[in-house]
């Protein structure tokens, strides 16, 4: 079953159409979401009532477009803020983790490495509830001790950020460690020989080498945070990020407004993904 081994025409035809069918299956849901964003009707379904831009730019009821819908815009802002915090935090910790695992040998290193991988195999919803439970234990403890109510420990943006950070850091660590392993240590030694201090050597030689991986990790972390649903669902307070806001609307019944938001999301994330690929190729 490799190109050099001849196969019957029928076999190749069937195999080829199977692969084609697979890609149609992949594309189908996204295509319908995108197409119905332009349907001039209250529902994202057939019949097709004609083409309209109203679900993007419309200003009047009942067709208020994305760019005039306050709730959605606010949710996008919340998501972007959370994603930015998560990306910066997780890549910072990911970088220090990478240096730790790459440069030091110490007792318990293997155990810590396995612990570091664990967040990937814990269901997101369990991560969410465990952080919810612990933060409320903390908040209650502080209340009992000092009669202080720490709002930050109640469901809200801080917990959402921490919850997402708790597993995205693993991914950032893996991405950055992979690159650091390819680094030629003699380059750093050369800098030390030339009179640089250790910190200067790391800053001028190692970090620039790691930069593509770090930027890649920032983008991946940003996207994962922006799309996260399970962990966020358990920790969300009054300001909902975009996925939660869309979920609430979807439960009430959908209008093509959601299709328009989805289409913009698709464009945004493919643009980011493309940027990363271009950047990595350089």
């Amino acid at each position, binding site marked *: 079953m490799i190109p050099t081994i001849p196969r019957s025409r029928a076999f190749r035809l069937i195999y080829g159409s199977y692969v084609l069918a697979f890609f149609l299956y992949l594309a189908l*849901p996204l295509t319908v979401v995108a197409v119905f964003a332009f349907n001039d009707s209250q529902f994202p379904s057939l019949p097709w009532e004609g083409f309209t831009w109203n679900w993007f730019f419309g200003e009047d009821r009942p067709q208020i477009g994305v760019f005039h819908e306050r709730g959605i815009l606010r949710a996008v802002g919340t998501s972007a803020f959370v994603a930015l915090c998560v990306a910066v935090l997780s890549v910072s910790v990911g970088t220090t983790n990478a240096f730790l695992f790459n440069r030091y040998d110490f007792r318990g290193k293997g155990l810590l*490495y396995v612990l570091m991988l664990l967040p990937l195999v814990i269901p997101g919803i369990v991560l969410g509830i465990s952080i919810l439970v612990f933060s409320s234990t903390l908040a209650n403890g502080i209340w009992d001790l000092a009669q202080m109510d720490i709002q930050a420990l109640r469901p809200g943006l801080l917990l959402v950020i921490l919850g997402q950070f708790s597993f995205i850091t693993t991914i950032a660590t893996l991405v950055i460690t992979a690159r650091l392993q390819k680094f030629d240590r003699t380059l750093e030694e050369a800098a030390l020989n030339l009179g640089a201090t250790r910190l200067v050597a790391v800053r001028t030689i190692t970090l620039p080498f790691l930069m593509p991986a770090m930027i890649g990790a920032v983008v991946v972390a940003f996207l994962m945070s922006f799309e996260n*649903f399970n962990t966020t669902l358990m920790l969300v307070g009054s300001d909902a990020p975009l996925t939660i806001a869309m979920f609430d609307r979807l439960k009430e019944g959908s209008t093509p407004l959601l299709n328009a938001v989805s289409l913009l999301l698709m464009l945004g994330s493919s643009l980011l993904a493309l940027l990363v690929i271009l950047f990595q190729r350089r």
Partner: protein
Amino acid sequence: MRAQSRIAFILLLTPLLLWLGLLILIPHIDMALISLRERISFGVYETSLLQYQKALTEPLYLRTFWRTAVMSVLATAITLLIAFPVAYYIAKMARGRLQQVLFMLCLIPFYVSELVRTFGWMILLRETGLISNLLQWAGLADQPVEMLYNDAAMMVGLVYTSMLFMVVPLVTTLESLDDSVVEAGYDLGGNGLSVLREIIIPHAMPGIVSGCIVVFMLSLGNYLTPTMLGGKDSLWFTEMIYNQFIVRSNWELGAAFGFMLLVLSSVIVWGMLRLTGRTLQETMG
């Protein structure tokens, strides 16, 4: 120099320990403790196994638990069966540009939020949806067909959502299979089936294991797809956790459910690793 190196070591170790300690280990221990207590009256709790007793004797809870496990295994198996030929095509049959383009096409849907993907399936499958209309137009149905809110719809969604996590590891391992090994298999008198069984599948095993683990985890922990595409009877275990925590505010029972989910997923992941003799580091790292 040594002292300096020691300070650097401690500075690098601190964030790791804070992260793992405060966000992973202690919260899970706390969750376990909460699941082990029983509410006597306001603010008064006693240690007991009542929550687990409830979870293991109430038929609805137990049924949902096993259903979620079995359906997740089924979703993983279907994903593997669908993905394997495609991954093989990308890794071994397609060449050059085509190979790159096909691989990219596999990745694209997954840069999009799961919510959007689920929404797409709702538009396709619901009573007024595209497929229902298509069937009527083709004369195969004489009235709108509701295809949403049942197990099949949920399965379609689950498989779709986790497809990428199967295709990518499979392509990566299959790409490293040398063509000449497959040729040698044929030269030694093997046919398509025996080459597949004796050469290709054993070689792809690492990819199959890591793909299956990730897909299983994602299906088990999925909330969105069963809620939006599944029907009234297809309750998912994550929905029960959500209900106990957010709707009923019964944190003790919710924590017990959470712990059961965690144990179930750990046991199955551990079992898969044991069965294939691999470690978590090799599979995930």
